[in-house]
């Protein structure tokens, strides 16, 4: 986050240096700043800034894919006659996530295949999820696990 702010600062600096005060100047400065910080942050302990941007891209691609899959699934259910759902409310443990992470996870769950976040327990330990296709409870939980793991690993490291 600190490095991201630094990246924005570098972009603004770039605009002033060349006197290009438009969106292209900002974009060029941002890309160059990103490359620079990606190299510099390799020498710093802990975080790698270059990897972060890549992770963000990779997560976005994954998210877009499951979003479209979710919609095709709902579309198929709606267009074909009869119902093939096997819905349940399942409880999903969310220990160790911060409020911000929890909100992002709940939003992502709502937008991914067959699941809709419905409630958080009073003590904040469980998220209740309405699953459309949960014939087998363990499979549904496994899908949520994959989403959570990718999110924590690629978005919040």
């Amino acid at each position: 986050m600190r490095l991201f702010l630094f990246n924005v600062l570098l972009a603004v600096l770039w605009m002033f240096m060349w006197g290009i005060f438009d969106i292209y100047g900002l974009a060029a400065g941002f890309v160059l700043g990103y490359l620079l910080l990606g190299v510099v942050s390799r020498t710093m302990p802990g975080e790698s800034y270059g990897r972060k941007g890549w992770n963000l891209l990779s997560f976005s691609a994954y998210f877009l894919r499951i979003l479209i899959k979710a919609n095709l699934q709902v579309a198929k259910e709606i267009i074909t006659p009869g119902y093939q759902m096997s819905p349940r409310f399942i409880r999903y443990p969310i220990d160790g996530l911060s409020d911000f992470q929890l909100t992002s996870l709940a939003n992502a769950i709502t937008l991914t295949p067959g699941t809709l976040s419905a409630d958080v327990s009073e003590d904040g330990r469980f998220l209740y999820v309405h699953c459309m296709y949960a014939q087998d409870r363990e499979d549904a939980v496994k899908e949520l696990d994959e989403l959570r793991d990718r999110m924590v690993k690629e978005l919040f490291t």
Partner: protein
Amino acid sequence: MHDTTQMILDLLTVAALLFGLFFMTVGAVGLARLPDFYHRVHAGSKGVTLGLTGLLVAAMFGLSTHQEATALNVITKATLVILFQFVANPVGAHLLAKAAHLDRCPMWEGTLSDELEEDTAASS
């Protein structure tokens, strides 16, 4: 602007429009057709999010051939709207589902289990 570029942009616009309209329609039909409230929220949240994204992308392509200032204006605003609706839409759906469950909105008879109900009953 060359004719071919214009044609490619037009094709992209039409494709994005069809994509968005399809999911919007599916969302609307789903609201009428699915068996209980929770399923309808599924259709209303997923379908409309992707549908609106498609329509906004179509607007970006379609208006990007106008003069530069208009095009930039449209593109930045459409991007912001897409981002914000990805945050706002699921939150609305979450609250609807939560309120419905608090109000004991009836579930479809095919519902297999309701662990939320079990836990609320246990804690009260």
